[in-house]
């Protein structure tokens, strides 16, 4: 029989946009009161803009369970974690928590730049709720995990950002709460350190502790969690087996990506240059609905500049994301051609990709336009990008199952000790 570690019931958090932002000085507050007073008689009053960051969220997590929380930006994931870690209070609802909680909403919280690595270990650990004798016992282990032994008595302001993050995560990784709440901390550090962190997370979850993870990386969520929650606009859209919930998330992304680009509200940037459309073309510049593995494809990005203006030093780029949301590759005007790009009026940029190295499946595109280093228009999941599977290596074999829209294809050959003839060189590759 399993026992409950966290039980949330009808959890809601309400934010008033105006109150927190606009009245930060006494004068504003007084003016606001006065305005309210004068408008009282006339019966007019501005409605206070407000929204529910989290609304009616209920769920249970059993002891020893690893639960993933996924959703778009602004879906309420961070607010939910903040409520669970007692940083902010819910407006309605209750949470019952059984066990010591440690939450890592950011690594290195409370690090002081003037203090040495050694001193910061004690400071950070105390903030995360570790007892001093516990820190002393694990001190060597923490330092070894971080790999900054030689600099342990150097103020952390002299650390590289990588060292800083490694030390911070090392402290966090040695917490021993019954419940661990983690937010996106894995998005930092180099690949090998990330791997180390993932290993640590798995170890933590296997040791019978309850873990809640928020991440945008579906690979991590699928790898670590048995169950997941999908949040949409503050509500629970889906809860259950990780695989089903992740699929629901992918569906949500797809429906968003099929919206006409001009109508997309979720864009970031100055907006003086806007992306208006994306077309897929084959090598004869005929419009196509889907690209094909191993064939040439042209991704055409149409743009429109603000009236009569000319934008110098522009960069237009598009990147391809796999089905788990992972970045696969980026095509950017500046990388292959150092000549400055100037945009005016309307027009398009073609990215010509010969011999498309992607397996069949549903991908997503992410677009980005900038001028003089300022982001003009950035849209995540701007459009779906379908690829039909074809015989990339000319051998009659398709990619193994599980690799659809997941990873890229590379040209390679293999040899064995018995037969060094190079017979296995892919047919089409040899032709070139």
């Amino acid at each position, binding site marked *: 029989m399993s026992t409950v570690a966290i039980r949330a019931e009808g959890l809601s958090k309400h934010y008033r946009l105006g109150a927190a932002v606009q009245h930060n000085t006494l004068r504003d507050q007084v003016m606001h009161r006065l305005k309210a007073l004068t408008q009282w008689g006339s019966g007019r009053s501005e409605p206070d803009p407000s929204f529910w960051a989290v609304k009616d969220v209920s769920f249970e997590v059993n002891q020893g369970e690893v639960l993933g929380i996924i959703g778009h930006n602004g879906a309420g994931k961070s607010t939910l974690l903040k409520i669970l870690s007692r940083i902010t209070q819910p407006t*309605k609802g209750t949470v019952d928590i059984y066990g010591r909680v440690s939450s890592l909403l950011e690594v290195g919280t409370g690090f002081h730049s003037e203090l040495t690595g050694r001193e910061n270990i004690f400071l950070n650990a105390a903030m995360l709720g570790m007892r001093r004798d516990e820190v002393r016992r694990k001190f060597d282990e923490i330092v070894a995990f971080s790999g900054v032994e030689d600099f342990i008595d150097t103020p952390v302001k002299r650390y590289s950002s990588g060292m800083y993050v490694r030390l911070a995560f090392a402290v966090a990784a040695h917490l021993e709460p019954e419940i661990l709440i983690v937010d996106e901390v894995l998005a930092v550090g180099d690949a090998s350190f990330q791997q180390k962190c993932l290993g640590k997370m798995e170890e933590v979850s296997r040791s019978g502790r309850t873990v809640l993870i928020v991440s945008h990386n579906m690979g991590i969520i699928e790898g670590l969690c048995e169950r997941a929650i999908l949040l949409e606009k503050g509500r629970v859209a889906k809860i259950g087996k990780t695989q089903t919930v992740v699929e629901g998330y992918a569906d949500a992304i797809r429906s968003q990506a099929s919206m006409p680009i001009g109508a997309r509200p979720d864009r970031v940037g100055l907006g003086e240059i806007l992306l208006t459309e994306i077309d897929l073309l084959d090598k004869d510049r005929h419009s196509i609905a889907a690209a094909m593995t191993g064939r040439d494809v042209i991704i055409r990005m149409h743009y429109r500049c603000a009236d009569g203006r000319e934008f110098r030093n522009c960069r237009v780029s598009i990147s391809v994301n796999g089905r788990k949301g992972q970045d696969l590759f980026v095509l950017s005007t500046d990388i292959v051609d150092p000549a400055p790009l100037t945009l005016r009026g309307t027009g398009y940029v073609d990215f010509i990709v010969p011999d498309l190295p992607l397996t069949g499946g549903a991908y997503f595109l992410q677009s980005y336009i900038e001028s003089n280093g300022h982001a003009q228009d950035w849209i995540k999941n701007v459009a779906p990008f379908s690829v039909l599977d074809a015989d990339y290596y000319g051998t009659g074999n398709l990619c193994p199952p599980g690799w659809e829209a997941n990873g890229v294809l590379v040209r390679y050959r293999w040899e064995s000790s018995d037969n060094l003839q190079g017979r296995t060189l892919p047919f089409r590759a040899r032709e070139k």
Partner: protein
Amino acid sequence: MSVINIDQRHPVVLPHVRIQPAKGLLDLDLASLWQYRELIHILVWRDVTVRYKQTLLGVAWAMFQPVATMLIFTVVFSVMGKIPSDGFPYPVFLYAGLLPWFYISQALSRGGTSLVGEAPLISKVYFPRLILPLSATIAPLVDLFLAFIAFLGLMAWFEVVPTWRILLLPVFAGLAAMITLAAGLWVSALYVRYRDVGHILPMFIQLGMFVSPILYPVSKVPESWRAIYALNPVVSVVEGFRWALIPGFQVDFSMVLPSLGIVVVVLIGGLIYFRSMERTFADVI
């Protein structure tokens, strides 16, 4: 990492926390401060350490500052300004007042800004927020102690021999800490909401020196003003310090009692206000 044992046969009693919208004003939850005592300890240590890191003189600054101030003020106010000091050597009289004043001004400006200064912490980790103004009030006690050591040198120079009353100095230091904490609770919580505090506080502290008997004796305050003057709790602390440190110093203790009452009221009010504002700190900061 070692494995915690959640053994089904011998179930561990896990601590239970219920998170819900707070109700009521009087839930001060001071017990949580005890649970987090190690954090208070380490924050105080951090504040003291960081203050003198990468300085040549290090902690000697805690002595140098009041001594230098005392020398300059003695020249300006005693030699040039002819301000009396109830017949005691002016440097000793002045320094005994500067001791608590340096502490109060430092602790109040650090305590008042302790929440806004730690904004990233407040929005990322949970701990009783009371710990921040509390540890900011405790940390400058170290400086006070060092400045007191320098005072012993001054006493030797002027051949002032302390009496048993010096043993009561910690009581007045505690009173100073209580006053500062009371004010710090209000100021720090208001600062989260109103950034005006950042402008008002330094001015307030600067003027505070003149409405407290630091540079001049209470005997110079007109008799008819004294009742109002005594409402300033800093008066009690400064008079207490002088009474404990300077043999033969006379204090009218009837002036002290009303200000004690004020401190208690402000402190309890501050605790309640702080607790009620605490719920929204992370959202507003």
